[in-house]
C-alpha cells in the first residue's frame, strides 16, 4: 500500500515535469526562430549596414547591391490599403453580429466568416489572379498587378481577424451600460455609437493591429497579385513587391550573400511583426486591468 503511494507520487511528478517540458517547447521554438533567422542574415546586415539595407532603394543581387526600401514601402502600402478597406467592414460586421443581427441571420453569417478565415491564402491569390487582376487591367489600365489588387485581397483575408476580435470586445461590454443608455432615451444606434464602441475600443484596436500583422506577414496571396516589381510605386495602380514576396520569390535559387540578404529581409519582417505583437499584448493587458 505504502509502496504503491510512493510509486504514485513519483509518477505524478514525472507527468508534471513532462507536461512542463511540452509547455516550454513553445518558448524554445520562438527563441530558436529568432536566433536562426538573425544569425543567417546578420553577416550581410553587418556588411551592408542596417540603415543602408533598409533605406537603400536598389535591389540588385547579381551585382551585390542590397537595398530593400522598395519592399518596405510595398509592404507598408498594401497593409495600409488593406486596413483602409478592411477595418470599416470588419468593425461594421462585428457591430452587426454583436448588436443587430437576428439570431437566425447570425447563425448563417458566423460559419461564413469562419470559412473566410479557413480558405488558404493561395486560393485567395488564385482568385485575385484570375478575377481581380484582369478586372483591374480592364478598368484602371496597366498590367492590373498592383498595390490596390494586393490591398483588396488582403482586406478580405484580414476581415475575419478584425471581425472576431471586435465582436468579442463588443460582447463583453456590460449589459447595464447599454440598458442605462436606452433608459435615458438614446436609440439603438446612439447607444452603439456612444456606449458600445467607445467601451470596446481597446479590444477593437487589438483586432485591427492583429489584422495588420496578418496583412504584413501574408505571402502567397500577395505575390500572386502585386506583380513583384522592386520599384517604389508612383500610384496605387503600380505593381510592387513586399518583404514576404522578396523572400519567397528568390529563395529557390539564391545562395551565398544573396541568401543572407533574404534572411536579413526576414529579420526586418520579424521586427515589424514583433513590434505589432507587443502593441497587441500591451493593449490587452491594459484592458484586463481596466
Amino acid at each position, binding site marked *: 500500500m505504502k509502496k504503491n503511494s510512493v510509486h504514485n507520487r513519483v509518477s505524478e511528478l514525472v507527468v508534471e515535469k513532462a507536461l512542463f517540458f511540452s509547455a516550454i517547447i513553445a518558448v524554445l521554438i520562438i527563441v530558436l526562430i529568432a536566433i536562426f533567422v538573425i544569425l543567417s542574415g546578420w553577416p550581410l546586415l553587418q556588411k551592408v549596414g542596417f540603415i543602408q539595407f533598409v533605406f537603400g532603394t536598389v535591389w540588385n543581387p547579381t551585382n551585390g547591391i542590397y537595398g530593400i526600401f522598395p519592399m518596405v514601402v510595398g509592404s507598408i502600402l498594401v497593409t495600409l490599403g488593406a486596413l483602409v478597406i478592411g477595418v470599416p467592414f470588419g468593425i461594421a460586421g462585428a457591430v452587426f453580429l454583436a448588436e443587430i443581427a437576428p439570431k437566425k441571420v447570425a447563425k448563417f453569417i458566423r460559419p461564413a466568416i469562419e470559412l473566410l478565415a479557413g480558405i*488558404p491564402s493561395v486560393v485567395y491569390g488564385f482568385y485575385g489572379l484570375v478575377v481581380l487582376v484582369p478586372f483591374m487591367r480592364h478598368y484602371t489600365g496597366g498590367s492590373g498587378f498592383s498595390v490596390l489588387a494586393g490591398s483588396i485581397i488582403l482586406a478580405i483575408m484580414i476581415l475575419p481577424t478584425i471581425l472576431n476580435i471586435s465582436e468579442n470586445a463588443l460582447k463583453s461590454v456590460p449589459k447595464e451600460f447599454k440598458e442605462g443608455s436606452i433608459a435615458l432615451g438614446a436609440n439603438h444606434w446612439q447607444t452603439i455609437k456612444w456606449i458600445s464602441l467607445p467601451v470596446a475600443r481597446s479590444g477593437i484596436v487589438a483586432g485591427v493591429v492583429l489584422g495588420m500583422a496578418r496583412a504584413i506577414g501574408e505571402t502567397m496571396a500577395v505575390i500572386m497579385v502585386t506583380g513583384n516589381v522592386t520599384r517604389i510605386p508612383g500610384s496605387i495602380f503600380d505593381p510592387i513587391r513586399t518583404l*514576404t514576396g522578396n523572400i519567397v520569390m528568390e529563395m529557390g535559387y539564391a545562395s551565398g550573400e544573396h541568401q543572407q540578404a533574404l534572411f536579413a529581409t526576414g529579420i526586418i519582417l520579424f521586427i515589424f511583426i514583433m513590434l505589432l505583437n507587443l502593441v497587441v499584448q500591451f493593449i490587452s493587458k491594459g484592458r484586463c486591468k481596466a
Partner: protein
Amino acid sequence: MKWSAKLEEKVFIGLLWASAILAILVLFSIVGHILINGIAGLSWEFITAEPSRMGKEGGILSIIIGTLYLTVASLIVATPIGVGSAIFLTEYAKKGRVVRVIRFATESLAAVPSIIFGLFGFVLFVITLGMGWSIISGALTIAFMILPTIIRAAEESIKMVPDSYREGSLALGASKWYTIRKVVLPSALPGIATGIILGIGRSIGETAAVILTAGSSLGLPTSVFDPTRTLSVHLYILASEGISMEKAYATATVLIILIISINFVANWLMAKLVGRVA
C-alpha cells in the same frame, strides 16, 4: 432634432446590414467562382492519376499523397506537445513569471508569419540538420506553426470542463493525473479535436513555408525523407507559372471542398463539446 436622430439610426443600421451582406457576397463569389470553373475538371481520374508534363496533364495523386504525409506527420509531432502544454497551463501552472513567459511565447508564435517559419525550417532542418527538402523538414516546420492553434483550442476546452467534475474525482481518491486522464480530457475531447482539425486545415492550406522546406517535387514520395509537393503548392505553381488554368481550377476546387469539410467537422465537434459540458 428627434427626426434626424431617427434618420441617422436608420441610415447606419442599414449600412451595417449592407456590410454584413457584402461580406457574405464576397465569400460566395470567391467560392462560387472557383467551384463553377473547377468542377468540370474534377473527375475520378484527376484524383487517382499521376500528374504528367509538370501537371499540365494527368491528375494529382502524388500531390494528394504528399499532402497527406505532411499533414499526418505534422500532427503526430504537434498534437502531444500542444495538448501537454495546454494541460500544463490550465491544470498545473501557478500564476507567475514562467506562465507569463510561456503565454507570451505562444502568442508570439501564433503571430509569426508563415514565411518566417519557412526560413527557420529551411536553415535548421534543410541545411543545418541535413534533412534536405523533405516531408520530414516540412512536417516539423508545420508542426511548430500549428502548435499555437492546438494549444489554444485545447486550453479553451479544458477550461470549459466544470470544476465539480475534478472535485468529484479527487474526492473519490483519484490522483490528479488520473483525474485529468479519466475525467478532464474525455470531457474536453471534442474541443481538443477541433483544435487538431483546425491545425489540419492550416497545414493543408500552407504554401510559403512548405515550398521552402518540403520542396515542390512532383514525384510520388516513398518515405518521409523524400521531397514532395502539397495541394497548395501545386495550385500556386500551376497558376503562377501559367502551366494549366484548368488544372489549377480543379486543384483549387479540391482545396475548397477539403476546407469546407474541415470547417463542418470542426463546428460539429464544437457543438458536441458544448452539449457535453453544459
